[in-house]
């Protein structure tokens, strides 16, 4: 159990290493955001809706059946209203938006946890989202171990927890917001397990 927990923690560490250095391979969909098709016009519109859905093709044509930000165009307000009820009935919730804040960054972001299949992708998404801030903080290069920041979250009860401790599904159903804080501040949380 401890080994598993440890691997979760490792997965969620933010790193500044260059791509390819101990970092997992990034799939075509960076961080779960919709990919910009390059010059392939056909990629904009797949005219075969009968494609098998639910497959995430890593490294294949970008516009696969992965979720796209803001589509269908339903306001978050409405989506969130149904979320809790769908969870009760067991049906798929259509969106799970949580705020993400980073210590030192002046602006909040909101992400949809449903876009990610697990901690690895979440970590990558946060990595790319906050890269411009952590770059200013240090000049870490490839090969350094240890990380500058830890990802934490606030759960339903208001407690601050380290991301990666619990199974992914449990995390998405209890996470209320995410906070990226300096690793030194988060040290206290690890000992809570």
């Amino acid at each position, binding site marked *: 159990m401890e080994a598993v927990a440890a691997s979760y923690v490792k997965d969620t560490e933010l790193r500044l290493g260059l791509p390819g250095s101990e970092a997992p391979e990034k799939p075509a969909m960076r961080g779960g955001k919709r990919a910009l098709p390059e010059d392939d*016009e056909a990629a*904009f519109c797949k005219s075969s*809706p009968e494609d098998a859905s639910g497959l995430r093709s890593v490294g294949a044509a970008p516009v696969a059946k992965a*979720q796209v930000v803001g589509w269908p165009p339903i306001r978050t*307000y*409405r989506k969130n209203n149904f979320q809790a009820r769908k969870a009760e009935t067991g049906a798929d919730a259509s969106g799970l938006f949580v705020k993400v804040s980073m210590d030192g960054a002046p602006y909040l*972001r909101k992400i949809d946890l449903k876009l990610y299949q697990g901690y690895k992708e979440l970590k990558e998404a946060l990595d790319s989202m906050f890269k*411009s801030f952590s770059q200013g903080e240090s000049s870490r290069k490839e090969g350094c171990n240890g990380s500058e920041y830890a990802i934490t979250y606030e759960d339903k009860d208001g407690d601050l927890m380290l991301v990666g401790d619990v199974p992914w599904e449990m995390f998405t159903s209890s996470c209320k917001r995410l906070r990226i804080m300096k690793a030194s501040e988060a040290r206290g949380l690890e000992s809570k397990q």
Partner: protein
Amino acid sequence: MTEDGDGEEKDEEKQKLSPTRSGGGGVGGGSSGSASSLSKMGRVRGGEERADQPPPFSDQVLENVIENVLEFLEYRRDRNAASLVCRSWYRAEAQTRREVFIGNCYAVSPARAITRFRAARALVLKGRPRFADFNLVPPGWGARFSPWVAAMAPAYPWLERVCLKRMTVSDADLALLARSFPSFRDLTLICCDGFGTPGLATIAELCRNLRVLDLIENDVEDEDEQVADWISKFPEATACLESLSFECVNCPVNFAALEALVVRSRSLRRLRVNQHVSIHQLRRLMERAPQLTQLGTGSFHSVPGAAGAPDLDVADLESTYAASKSLVCLSGFRMLEHEYLPAIFPVCANLVSLNLSYAMITAEQLKPVIFQCHNLHTFWVLDTIGDDGLQAVAKSCKNLSELRVFPFDASEDSEGSVSDSGLVAISEGCPKLRSILYFCQRMTNAAVMAMSKNCPDLVVFRLCIMGRCRPDQITGEPMDEGFGAIVMNCKKLTRLAVSGLLTDRVFEYIANHGKSVRTLSVAFAGNTDLSLKYILEGCPNLQKLEIRDSPFGDAGLLSGIHHFYNMRFVWMSACKLSSAGCKEVARSLPHLVVEVIGEWSQDLDTDAVEKLYLYRSLDGPREDAPPFVKIL
């Protein structure tokens, strides 16, 4: 209900900034009243410069007379037209305009608006572009209310009403509002964020003359659980409330205080509570306020074993509804318990507006209700009722004017419960339909064509086929012909949203026939720049254009240079724009603000433009742009 009415009237600033083919207006002076663009620019400039100098005596008399006449003008369009006649009328109109509508908060600075309209009593302000509702605009982009309230506080002592849409309003802003305007009576916030219950508490406490507090679909956030008991803050003396809507406030309210407030507010006509109000509590509120005309029912759910109260009998609730003889508008039903739905039967025949769009009901559950709603004009519902449910609507609601069918499962791969046959049924049963928003997965050109023929009065047609780029489900063809028929047959159409598999052809249709179209929403559509060229060159009334994920590039964008000053905004995201093209637009049109919006980690100097948002402005680029926005 949520008002998504994107203004039909001209903006305040449009009349000042007319198309200038020569690319810039000189100070023409002249008050000939002609429609030529240069003289309009010049007259406005001259008018502004001279507005502070008092006119000679006889002119002053004339101006006073005009003021008295212009006071009767209500509509923005009329006022805008009157202000263009000559400097004297411009001044007189500015002195008598009571409601100032600003469709884009960055089109004009607070100082300029306040300087011109010195006697305003009401402000309507819209901020973020609509695609912000779908998370396409990063938080922190802007549209803050702070500079506006700070500027108005000293300038508008008689301010009575503020209506904001898609703006960021802080608790401090609300506090300043509450303290600065002793006559303040009406606050409406739609799709705003940045405030919490502490801000509401200040409003409740300090606005002694408050009549309307409508909070509609706002993101009400309370930091660190600092939830304030805002309902209790309404002083005993406040008894003139006419409307209270707080469905979007997610925390429980002090029910005793709410009940007391309702009891003493004899003028209360509209009450929309949040889902923390149980059905028992709702009944008590209704009994205290039988004069209500509009009711948002909250959860419509009983709390099992609630504080010793026995389970509510449907018949009892029904008799309460029977006593509410004035009810014409019902909404809420946030956690509907189906057994209680029949309680609303007594009011169905009087209902003009019914919003069941948060209620997961089937066709069978809907039918007994809808069969009695003969007077319904507006109906919002979830697609769980299916085509069968829509058939029932078509059979009973002959006067239906607005229909919105929302998806229960808002994802691309969902089954979709309503389809082309539901659309056809509605078109056949409701010929007076003027506005429709329809989410589905299955659609055909034939169905859309049928609607275009059966409902010629359509003003708003928004069809969202949720699976991206889906063709006609039967023929496999693009959906061009269907939407083409809409623009051809519905001559009054001003707002259009397209979806499904679409080629350049549909935009050619829109350009050729959609001459009245003012708002156009495009997603995952078109093949080439021709599409964009068609629309920008062919639609003279186009004011709001929002496009996402479509293969339109610089050539298409540049074809709109002659028209951008006539528009409120253009939004283009995930298209094929480059910074070269956007810079060219910015260079050609000095009064246009061209924003390139990036994600944080993205270098804004790259060639590809991820998100473009451009809009006209009298006061140049804004100073509050965050780091992820670059203004060209």
